[in-house]
């Protein structure tokens, strides 16, 4: 068996499973024959038209730009605060209640408050997403920082590796699984919040478009846009996160 044949063979169950889902959907659409459940082919056609007209790329781009900004800010800020709380018991005890409060504030409340306090601005939208995501990142990275191997830190200290080298080569590899976990859950959470943010206070983006399709009862467009976004997230997983995982885990047995 050639390597390409072997890859196809390995992927076969996943491909069959997706085909089954499409088949079920097609069958259901044919039985119900209702505009609220368009067939896969119809959704595909709408998808293609939206791509060719440039409408889907424009709105997808707007949402992805917001996602990149809010995700980067939340990860950097949350990572730094998480490490600090994980390594400093007094600070952790002091701020623990803040974390619990922010974790439990509904996303919708934060979004509304940001728009009410700061206006329907782009940065208010990004701030709302960051505030929603930040506590999750902090909690995940804090757990990682708490479990840092003391033996390795002592080794780094006794050999005077310095702060930058210690962080890069001793601390970061230990935090990597926690960062990846925060990244995955972050992407899943952020894009859902961004849709609400766009629905409530922006004039472009996937959330804005979905709201429009809802008002028009245009289910085919609604599904076409949803698949486009899910596909992008899957590509990020396949092309970015999985290779990073493999690289970081190459030393494991």
């Amino acid at each position: 068996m050639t390597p390409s044949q072997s890859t196809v063979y390995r992927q076969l169950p996943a491909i069959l499973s997706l085909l089954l889902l499409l088949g079920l959907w097609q069958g259901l659409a044919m039985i119900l024959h209702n505009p609220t459940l368009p067939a896969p082919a119809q959704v595909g056609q709408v998808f293609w038209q939206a791509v060719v007209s440039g409408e889907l790329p424009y709105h997808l781009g707007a949402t992805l730009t917001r996602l990149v900004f809010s995700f980067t800010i939340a990860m950097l800020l949350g990572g730094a605060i998480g490490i600090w709380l994980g390594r400093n018991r007094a600070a952790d005890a002091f701020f623990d209640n803040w974390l619990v409060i922010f974790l439990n504030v509904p996303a919708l409340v934060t979004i509304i408050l940001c728009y009410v306090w700061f206006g329907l601005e782009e940065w208010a939208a990004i701030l709302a997403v960051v505030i929603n995501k930040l506590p999750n990142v902090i909690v995940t990275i804090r757990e990682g920082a708490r479990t840092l191997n003391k033996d390795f830190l002592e080794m780094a200290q006794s050999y005077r590796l310095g702060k930058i080298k210690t962080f890069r080569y001793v601390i970061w590899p230990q935090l990597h699984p926690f960062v990846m976990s925060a990244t995955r859950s972050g992407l899943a959470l952020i894009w859902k919040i961004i849709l609400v943010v766009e629905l409530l206070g922006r004039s472009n983006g996937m959330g804005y478009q979905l709201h429009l399709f809802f008002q028009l009862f245009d289910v085919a467009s609604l599904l076409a846009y949803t698949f486009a976004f899910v596909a992008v997230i899957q590509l990020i997983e396949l092309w970015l996160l999985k290779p990073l995982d493999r690289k970081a885990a190459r030393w494991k047995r």
Partner: protein
Amino acid sequence: MSGLLIDIQDKTYSVAGHRHQAIANLQLHVKRDEFVCLVGPSGCGKTTLLNMIAGLDSHYHGKISINHSQGLPTIGYVFQNPRLLPWFTVRRNIELVFAEPPPSALIDSLLATMQLNDVQHSYPERLSLGMQRRVAIIRAFAINPDLLLMDEPFVSLDAPSARQIRSLLYELWQQRPHTVLFISHDLREAIALADRLIFLSAAPMQIVADIPVNIARQERHDKTKIEAFHQQLLIGHPAINNYL
């Protein structure tokens, strides 16, 4: 010339709310390039002392000074467990401790001396404990430290592996003499390696005997000489039996 000066009045820490004095009035002078073995009962504070010298523990009353040429003293520390970073290969673990670009020729020569050339690109988890300990010894020697601390580096190894690494360590030290402070529970091992044996009491740790090993270096491989010195030591200093 002095390699290491230790003058500790008091080292106390809390255990479950109780104050425990680990070290009291300990003075020790180690000459430059001298190999000194610390022998004492478990839990007497030997590792605590090494951690204090390495700068990992600064909560004590007293002074520790290490002879060094410039800047901060460099210390090579071989811990009880090898403490190799599992995500780096053997070679990267050694290269990591260099502040400047690592000298390839030196690392190659140390790997050859320790018979680890073949596994230099392997990850530590794929090596035996004995091999990992050899890597830890190379890492400590490689930076040409002002002081080398070794905390029972052969513990939990089978006797042949321990013997092999001991002789490799000895060869390395003869090629590159350093001031060494070495902790051991094995008196024969200490006799085979050291210029001086320091016997320590149970906590609060104090020096109970300071005995030079007057066996010529070229005769250290001779088991009968080591055994004779061992017997002579036990007869001449019966009190040390209590500390072994």
